[in-house]
């Protein structure tokens, strides 16, 4: 049974089928067909609950690249099951919602193809045991997200947002990949489960912490943690169902999933604890703080999502302390934070999903999401208003809604953390609940803004595109279901806690013992309750006096935020890249030659000198006769005169002298064939030069500056000296006899007295054959160069 | 002339075949060739042309003229080069010849060029006039005019019937 693998594959298969089905079904909305996929998968995963809550895990494997240990191993434990249910459950609701949301001008096949692609990829992420397979799906989620954000790609903002999200998440993904590879380098396995069991031996490994931070980089970018959060608000250019699904309920949770998954590997260290907690808390605060000032409902929700993700992240950080204690009272105490994180993850999906759908309805029905244009919609959209209230009050952490429960647990965890005896918490630990509380105040404020600015006050119908009315019933089903869940989970939280959260917690902190946390709404008058009450009081005050303190947002200098940083980073990078590149890639051939020769001098000459290879020994040299010496003088004079020649013809003549002299050297050195060839070639070359000179201008004196000339001379001399020195060294240190003694039997072997000719025609005939081919190609090239001119076809050329 | 030569070769070849030896011997061929010369000498009037070996003789004579002219002119030039002070008066003068056809004209031009102190620079478009550069105009003009008839005659002996 490859149920899990099938579960991952089904969305991909469905993706492939969409174009085919789309053509067949005519007027029937393809969304209904698509809806079957997440629904079926949801049911499949629901059916796994009993087994998983008994502590079982499902493992299935298919080979992919066994030779390097990359296999398609999937497994289902409590943690993956929660995620899988979120993915498929939210997926069903979003697909249902989208059927009514999308307008007829949108391309359904594309939309649903991307959505299904994402669904499959996301399931892959949460079900994979193999790190690299996980990475594969991880990148696939980024890509499908990219495509969905750019669904309306004719909009500039969509394109911008899509690129930004892809760049940031892929960047993080690459870091994560490096982290995975480091883990593999330490442990020798790509399996997460196996890594968990053996990692204990490697905590002192030099790669342990680099791997940790790199994995976290992947998690933080994906889950939009500060300062990588900047892509999420821009991702809101996607259609709202997408925002509800990917950018609040599922994909952004992949980072959280990753942190949870890796807690048993890296958790229990101070580095992990502090990094995850602090980044989470900062994100929590910064997201909430920024959400307050937003005027676009979706932007507000985006920042709120960032904030909530930070909250969960910080919980995961706090909870990781439990691993330090392992089995025991304290382990259970701090493990509670993980439990809270998981709980809030689910809750967040419910209320944020509902809220996004609310915004979608508002946008869909009145044509705007701008808070400044909205107000008083309560009268026109009463049902939607109800959903909005439920969702945002849950988010604000008010009682009777599931958000209250997890928020309370969050406070518990943060208060507990203060007394944590390890990791040096004692000195700064108090800041944890303070930040948590402050952030929650802002959370309360933006939740109120969301509800009151949109639905209360005087309606501004003139500013709206359409007269607001409730949408069709289909669009209301999904948020309704979510609202039911929000309320239901408040009253029966332990249904979730016992069957799903507890197994997940055991997966994350294997050693956790004793009774799993029990969720209850009422803990008596403890610190957490007072914190909540404080939030309501201060939050209400701040909401009412918003105008008077709004100015604090102006303290931050305009144009100084991370998005501006990102933009200018890209721009400056391009500018700098252009500046640097055009500075050395001048297209100027002499410059390129200078680079090449300088490199040669540095590499070869440098090595010759630095390795002490240089040695010159003249004793083995053959003697020199007068005329040989004179001929060398002839050549040297001819050569040195060439650069100074006033006319190109003089230069050619001198080159001819060189060529003829070389032929004579070939004679002196007993090479008749060479002399013959050299002579003919030299003459034909000279003829070619003269033929072409007819078409070329007389050369002018080199107009380079004196500095350039000196530079060129220095390079030329240095290169010449390098060649000479290596040559002299080679000449002094021949290590082996040449193989060419063999060829002296050419008469017996090849039937020829002329050894050179026997080599050319027989021993190395292949060279000769190719050499004639080279000549032939050159001939073709010359022909085409001359014949193929603009406006002059090859027509009239045959004799 | 080529016809006679070819005929001579044919006779030699025939001779070789007639001898019917087991291999090709160059001596046999040469014998045949000599016999051919004899036959052709007897028959050449029958062809209406000069006996070709006579022409060969003229050619060799011409060659000797060439060599001697070359030697003389070289010596003259070396004398001038090595004289402590150059006392030459170079210049260009014209000469009209009576040669016909490219071969005659060319041979004469080459000869003139090798004549002491003169080089044929240009030939007029009609081919009748040479423009000659001389190392020393006065002396060259004289020597050219003096030897020109000899040259022309020697050339015509080769080329004409």
């Amino acid at each position, binding site marked *: 049974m490859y149920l899990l693998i099938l579960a991952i594959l089904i969305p991909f298969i469905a993706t492939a089928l969409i174009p085919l089905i789309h053509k067949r079904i005519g007027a029937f909305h393809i969304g209904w067909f698509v809806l079957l996929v997440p629904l079926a998968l949801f049911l499949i995963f629901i059916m796994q609950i009993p087994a998983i809550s008994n502590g079982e895990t499902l493992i299935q494997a298919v080979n992919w690249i066994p030779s390097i240990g990359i296999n398609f191993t999937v497994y289902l434990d409590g943690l993956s099951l929660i995620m899988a249910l979120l993915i498929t459950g939210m997926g069903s609701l979003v697909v249902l919602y989208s059927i009514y949301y999308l307008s007829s001008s949108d391309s359904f096949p594309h939309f649903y193809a991307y959505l299904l692609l994402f669904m499959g990829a996301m399931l892959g992420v949460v079900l994979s045991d193999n790190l690299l397979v996980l990475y594969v799906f991880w990148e696939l989620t980024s890509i499908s997200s990219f495509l969905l954000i750019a669904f309306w790609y004719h909009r500039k903002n969509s394109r911008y947002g899509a690129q930004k999200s892809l760049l940031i998440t892929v960047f993080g993904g690459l870091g994560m990949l490096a982290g995975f590879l480091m883990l593999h380098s330490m442990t020798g396995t790509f399996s997460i489960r196996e890594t968990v069991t053996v990692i204990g031996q490697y905590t002192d490994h030099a790669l342990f912490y680099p791997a940790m931070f790199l994995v976290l980089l992947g998690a933080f970018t994906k889950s939009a943690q500060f300062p990588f959060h900047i892509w999420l608000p821009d991702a809101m250019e996607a259609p709202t169902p997408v925002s509800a699904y990917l950018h609040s309920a599922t994909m952004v949770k992949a980072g959280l999933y990753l942190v949870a998954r890796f807690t048993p590997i890296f958790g229990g260290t101070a580095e992990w604890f502090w990094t995850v907690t602090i980044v989470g808390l900062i994100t929590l605060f910064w997201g909430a703080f920024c959400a307050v000032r937003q005027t676009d409902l979706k932007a507000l929700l985006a920042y709120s999502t960032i904030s909530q993700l930070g909250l969960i992240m910080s919980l995961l950080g706090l909870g990781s302390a439990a691993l330090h204690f392992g089995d025991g009272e304290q382990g259970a105490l701090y493990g509670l934070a993980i439990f809270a994180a998981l709980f809030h993850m689910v809750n967040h999906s419910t209320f944020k999903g509902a809220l996004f759908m609310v915004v979608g309805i508002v946008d869909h029905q009145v044509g705007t999401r701008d808070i400044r244009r909205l107000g008083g919609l309560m009268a026109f959209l009463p049902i939607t208003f109800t959903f909005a209230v439920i969702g945002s009050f849950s988010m604000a952490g008010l009682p009777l809604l599931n958000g209250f429960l997890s928020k309370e647990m969050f406070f518990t965890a943060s208060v507990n953390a203060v007394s944590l005896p390890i990791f040096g918490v004692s000195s700064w630990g108090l800041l944890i609940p303070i930040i948590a509380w402050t952030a929650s105040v802002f959370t309360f404020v933006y939740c109120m803004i969301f509800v009151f600015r949109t639905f209360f006050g005087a309606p501004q119908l003139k500013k709206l595109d359409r007269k607001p009315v409730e949408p069709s019933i289909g669009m209301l089903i999904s948020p309704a279901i979510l609202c039911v869940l929000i309320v239901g989970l408040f009253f029966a939280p332990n249904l979730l806690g016992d069957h799903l959260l507890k197994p997940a917690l055991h997966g994350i902190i294997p050693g956790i013992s004793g009774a799993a946390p029990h969720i209850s709404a009422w803990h008596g008058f403890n610190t957490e309750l007072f914190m909540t009450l404080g939030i309501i009081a201060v939050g209400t005050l701040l909401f009412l006096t918003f105008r008077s303190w709004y100015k604090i947002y102006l303290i931050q200098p305009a144009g100084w935020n991370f998005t501006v940083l990102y933009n200018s980073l890209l721009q400056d990078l391009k500018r700098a890249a252009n500046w640097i590149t055009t500075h050395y890639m001048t297209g100027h051939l002499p410059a390129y030659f200078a680079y090449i020769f300088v490199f040669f001098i540095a590499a070869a000459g440098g090595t010759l000198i630095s390795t002490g290879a240089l040695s010159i020994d003249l004793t083995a040299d053959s003697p020199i006769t007068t005329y040989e010496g004179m001929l060398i003088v002839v050549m040297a004079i001819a050569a040195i005169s060439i650069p100074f020649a006033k006319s190109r013809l003089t230069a050619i003549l001198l080159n001819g002298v060189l060529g003829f002299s070389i032929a004579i050297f070939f004679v002196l050195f007993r090479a008749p064939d060479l002399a013959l060839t050299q002579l003919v070639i030299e003459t034909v070359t000279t003829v070619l030069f003269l033929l072409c000179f007819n078409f070329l201008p007389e050369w002018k004196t080199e107009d380079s500056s004196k500095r350039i000339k000196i530079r060129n001379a220095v390079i030329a001399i240095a290169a010449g000296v390098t060649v000479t020195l290596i040559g002299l060294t080679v000449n002094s240190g021949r290590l082996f006899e040449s193989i060419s003694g063999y060829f002296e039997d050419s008469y017996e072997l090849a039937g020829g*007295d002329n050894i050179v000719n026997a080599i050319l025609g027989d021993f190395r005939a292949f060279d000769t*054959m190719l050499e004639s081919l080279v000549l032939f190609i050159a001939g073709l090239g010359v022909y085409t160069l*001359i014949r193929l001119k603009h406006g002059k076809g090859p027509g009239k050329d045959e004799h | 002339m080529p016809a006679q030569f070819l005929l001579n070769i044919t006779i030699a070849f025939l001779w070789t075949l007639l001898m019917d030896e087991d291999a*090709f011997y160059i001596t046999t061929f040469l014998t045949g060739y000599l016999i051919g010369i004899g036959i052709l000498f007897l028959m050449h009037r029958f062809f209406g042309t000069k006996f070709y070996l006579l022409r060969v003789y003229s050619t060799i004579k011409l060659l000797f003229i060439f060599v001697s002219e070359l030697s003389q002119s070289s010596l003259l030039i070396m004398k001038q080069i090595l004289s402590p002070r150059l006392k030459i008066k170079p210049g260009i003068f014209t000469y009209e010849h009576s040669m016909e056809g490219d071969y005659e*004209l060319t041979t004469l031009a080459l000869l003139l060029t090798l004549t002491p102190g003169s080089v044929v620079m240009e*030939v*007029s478009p009609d*081919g009748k006039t040479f423009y000659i550069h001389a190392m020393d105009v006065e002396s060259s003009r004289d020597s050219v005019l003096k030897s020109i008839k000899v040259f022309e005659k020697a050339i015509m002996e080769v080329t004409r019937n």
Partner: protein
Amino acid sequence: MNINDVILKTVSKGAVLIILTFGIYLFLSGHNQPGGGFIGGLVIASAFVLMFLSYDSETVSDALPIDFKKLSAFGVLLAMLSGIAPMFFGGAFLAQSFGYFNLPIFGKTELATVTVFEAGIALTVVGVVVNIILSISEDE
């Protein structure tokens, strides 16, 4: 005054004959003496060069109604086919063979397949060099 090239042209005719003969000699004797396909081809080509220099390009083209590109292609092909042939007799690519035969007139003579190979090379060289010079000189 127009140029009268009669001296040059006349001498060139003779020179070309000498060069061509010499070129063929070099090609054939390359096996035992300096020479061979490349050199022979180059010398033959230089005879053509001399013709181009002494006459005008049209005259030479008319006198030699050959497509030199195809000639060189044929040369390359010939060289390669001589290399392929031994493959059909169980030899390696480019395996050359030679033998001594008693021929009428020539006596004991060495015949080598390498001659075919070198002929291909020579044709290529001639074809390419002439093709290049023709191409350039016919450009306007």
